[in-house]
Structure formats: C-alpha cells, structure tokens
C-alpha cells in the first residue's frame, strides 16, 4: 500500500526544492540590482564545508548545513564589500571569476577535497532521519511504508519546510523597509542614496543573503546526494541557476520558483529535451532577452491573474 509514495518522484521533488533555493539565491541580489554569477561557487563552498564538517569531525548534519550556509554567507560579505563598488557588468564578471577560482581550488586542494574525484560517503539526511526516528522506537512499517519510501519522503518534507521558510523570509523582507531599500537601489542607486539609504550596506546585505542561500542549497545538495565533485559547481551550474530566475521572471519571487520547477521538470517529463537541454536554454535566453527581458512572470501578469487592482508594487 501507499505505492504512490514513489521514491523517484520524491527525488525529483527534492531536486526541484533545492533548485528553488538556488533560484532565490540569484533573485535576492538581483532585487537590489546585483547580478551574481557566483552562485555555483557559493553553492560549492556550502556543499564542501558541510560535507567536510560531517565527514571529518562527525558533526551532526544540521550543524554541517548551518555551517556550510554561514561560511558561504561570510565569504559573500568578504567578497561583497569591496566588489560592490563595481556596478552591473563588472560585478557579474568578478563573481564569475570568483566561482572559477573556487572550483579550481576544489580540484587542486587534493589533501582536503580529493581533487576532481570529489567527496563520497557524505552522511545522508534521509538515513540520519530514519535512525533518529528508530531511536524513538518508530519503524516506517508501522505506517505502512518501506524504508526507502520513508527516507525519500522525509527528505522531501524537510526540504519543503526549509524552502517554505526561505520564501516566507524573503517575501516578508520584501514588503518592508529593507525590501523597499533593495528595490529603490535597483531602480535608481543615486536617488536611493540621496534618500538616506546606505547603499553599500544594503547591497552587501542582499549579496550576502544570496551567498548564504546558495551555500544552504549546496550543503543540502551534498547531504541529499551523498557525493559531490567540483564539476557539480562549474560555470554551467551558475548559468543554469541564472536561467531559472531569468526565465521564470526576475522581478518577482514567484518567477524564480516557477522557473526552477518548470525547468527541472521539463527534462524529466520530456526525455528527448534532456539531451538538448542546454541548446534549448541558449536559444531561450536569447529570445527572452529580446521579447520578454523580465521573464515569463512579471508584476503585470500576476496582478491580472489575480484580478486585483491594488498597487502593482505590492507583490514585489
């Protein structure tokens, strides 16, 4: 019974959730006008930090995940403070360079990172959770689930909670003094500054939040997969994450969520798409920029869908 709890579907669901986190990690800096191509790098920092903490020091996964996200966030601050003097294109290139440096370090720091082979035997969240509930005398079979069904279900639910909390955080922040500062910087940096907004502070804040979220997604990725290698965090990953956000709609958070869901599902549903995925991505980016640079979902579309006449700034 309960066959509908299919590990394969749950696995895809988990990937979608991780990709939503990654898309949001691009969206947040973008909401203050910062395009970061370093998300794959920050993701890698989170993944490696958490994996190494749990493998080498036997720390609980939760400590590893929080540690991974924090290290990525702190790196975001360190990189952010000086490089946010740079605008637009320069920042994009600097973060792209950063991402590559991080990857090269993963490949070459053999003694710690095991080089291009990567790390294996990373403790997996699902098993840990299973052990935990067993400690309380609970067996999946008691609710009619097989062990692996239970494991995948728990991972999915845990990720779901984390993603929901993240979205809740970002939306609440958006509709506040902090969010208004982000969007005013995005729209006109100089005017924002002359309204008393400390633009350096808010830019670093949004950039570091993005780094933190990417690091969080990375460390969760490591503990879901159980193995990681530098190629998981290459430039292609950064581009893929960027596409989630840009395709779905970079002005609204729901755009990032939609982009991550849609673009993760499509290659799974349409197998033939999978092979040509990047070719399609490439064409899509070009067409999008020319036809609909704000992405599929935007404020106008959303307010029409909801049939609301209220302030279009309200949903940002």
């Amino acid at each position, binding site marked *: 019974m309960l066959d509908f709890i299919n590990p394969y579907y749950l696995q895809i669901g988990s990937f979608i959730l991780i990709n939503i986190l990654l898309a949001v990690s691009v969206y947040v800096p973008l909401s203050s006008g910062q395009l970061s191509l370093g998300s794959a790098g920050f993701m890698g920092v989170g993944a490696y930090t958490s994996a190494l903490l749990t493998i080498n020091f036997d720390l609980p996964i939760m400590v590893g995940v929080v540690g991974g996200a924090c290290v990525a966030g702190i790196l975001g601050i360190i990189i952010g403070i000086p490089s946010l003097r740079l605008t637009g294109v320069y920042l994009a290139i600097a973060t792209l360079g950063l991402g590559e440096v991080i990857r090269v370090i993963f490949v070459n720091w053999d003694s710690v990172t095991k080089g291009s082979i990567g790390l294996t035997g990373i403790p997996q969240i699902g098993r840990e959770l299973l052990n935990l509930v067993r400690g309380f005398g609970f067996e999946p079979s008691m609710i009619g689930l097989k062990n692996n069904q239970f494991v995948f279900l728990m991972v999915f639910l845990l990720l779901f909670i984390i993603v929901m909390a993240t979205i809740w*955080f970002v939306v*609440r*922040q958006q509709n*506040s*003094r*902090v*969010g*208004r*500062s982000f*969007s*005013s910087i995005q*729209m*006109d940096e*100089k*005017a*924002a*500054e*002359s*309204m*008393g*907004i*400390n*633009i350096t502070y808010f830019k670093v*804040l949004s950039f570091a939040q993005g780094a933190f979220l990417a690091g969080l997604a990375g460390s969760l990725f490591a503990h879901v997969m159980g193995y990681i290698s530098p190629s998981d965090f290459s430039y292609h990953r950064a581009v893929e994450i960027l596409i989630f956000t840009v395709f779905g709609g970079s002005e609204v958070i729901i755009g990032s969520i939609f982009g991550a869901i849609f673009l993760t599902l499509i290659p799974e549903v349409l197998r033939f798409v999978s092979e040509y995925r990047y070719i399609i991505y490439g064409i899509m980016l070009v067409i999008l920029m020319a036809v609909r640079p704000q992405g599929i979902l935007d*404020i106008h579309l959303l307010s029409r869908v909801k049939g609301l006449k*209220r*302030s*279009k*700034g*309200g949903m940002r």
Partner: protein
Amino acid sequence: MVLEIKNVSKNFGGIHALRNVSFSIKQGEIYGLIGPNGAGKTTMFNLITNIFEPSSGEIVFNDENITGLKSHKITEKGICRTYQNIRLFSQMSALKNVMVGGHSRSSSGVFSSVFRTKAQRKEEQELEKNAEELLKLVGLFENKDLLAENLAYGQQRRLEIARALASKPKLLLLDEPAAGMNEKETDSLYDLIKIIQSKGITVLIIEHDMPLVMKLCDRIAVLNFGEKLAEGTPYEIQNNEAVIEAYLGKEEEEEIA
C-alpha cells in the same frame, strides 16, 4: 545659519565648475540660486549632498562641517534634494516612493521586518500615514497607488518633493522644480513651497522661472561661469548692473520688471 558655503571650488579635469563660491542661508528663508546654464548651480547641489567632493572649501550645516560626509549621512543630518531631471523610483507606487523617503527616519532591520515585531509594525504604520499626509500636501493622494512612471510630468515633480519631505529635512534643495510646468502648476508650486517654509523648513532653490524666483525668494545668489556674481534680495538683484549685464540680458529685463 543653517548652511554656510565657504570658499568652495570644484574642478573637473582642469575645468573650473565652481570657483571660490561662498554664501550662507539663514534659518527659515527661501534662498534662490540662479544663473545661466552651465554656471555651476547643479554642481553646487551635488557638492552639498556630496555626490562630488569639493576640490577645496568647506560646507557647514548647522555649525557642523559636513564636507566629505557620505550622501546618505547628509540626508540623515537633514538635507534632502530633488533632481533637475526627475529621479523617482519609476516602478514603485507613489506611496512607496514617499515611504522610501522616510528611510532615514526609520530604523527597522532584517530581523524586525521578517518577524513583524510590534515596533516594526508601528513604524510601518507611521511611515505610511506620514507618506499619505505628504501626498495630500502635494495633491497626489488620489494617485497614491499609481506607479511613479505613470504619473503626469508635473505630478512627478511634486511627488519628488513629497519624497524629499518624507526625510524630514531641515534644509530642502529644489533643482528647477518649475521646469516644464504650466502657469497654473507653477502657481500651486509657489503655494506649496510657501507652505513648506511655514513648516520651518529652509529652502534652497535653483530655478529659471524668474517671476517665480523673484516672488518666492527672500534672498538670491547669482552664479556665472562658476563664480558668484551677486547676492541680495530680489530687488537688489534686479537692479544689479553686473547681473543685468551678464545674465539677465536685454530681452528678459522687461519680464522681470
């Protein structure tokens, strides 16, 4: 003195945009800054708000030297400005624009915003209430939910003033607020600035509309080629030989008289 400009100069790669300019503005007055295009008026605004730092000289605000202070700090001190070519947050509603203006008079951060603490909710309510009042003051209350970019030109100018007022400035800098306005709009602008003055806010205004300047200002400084040509009451300026010669020109004389 609210603002003292002391021997301020600004060079841009060898070009003197401003040369040894000094003037001071008293509490509560409306002070005009006039002069032909390229005389350095907007540069003076940019120096006061530290978009550029002066090459030499000092800017003193309420007995405090603010030269070289970061722009956003200067706003916190109580100086706020509008721009000659309107710089609103075009994709935000009028109300939100004004609420951003209240940034320096509010303090909630990430934590209080996300968890909606009591203090944060109170602050948001106050920001909104204050913004609505300012929109009423400039006559835009009915349009508060429109995006700034969808407002008419004259409305955008007034919205910029409301946004600046939201920072509760002691000194308001207006850069050609009447530009592009018709006679009726200019009249209501006059009333608005007078109301602002009556609230105890000192106003420094750059304006090309001479009848408005002469009617509005308590004192005026004339800039020409980056130097101060004259300073005085509107009456003195209108009768200053040098000013008439250098700036007002023959054709505008009648208009002023």
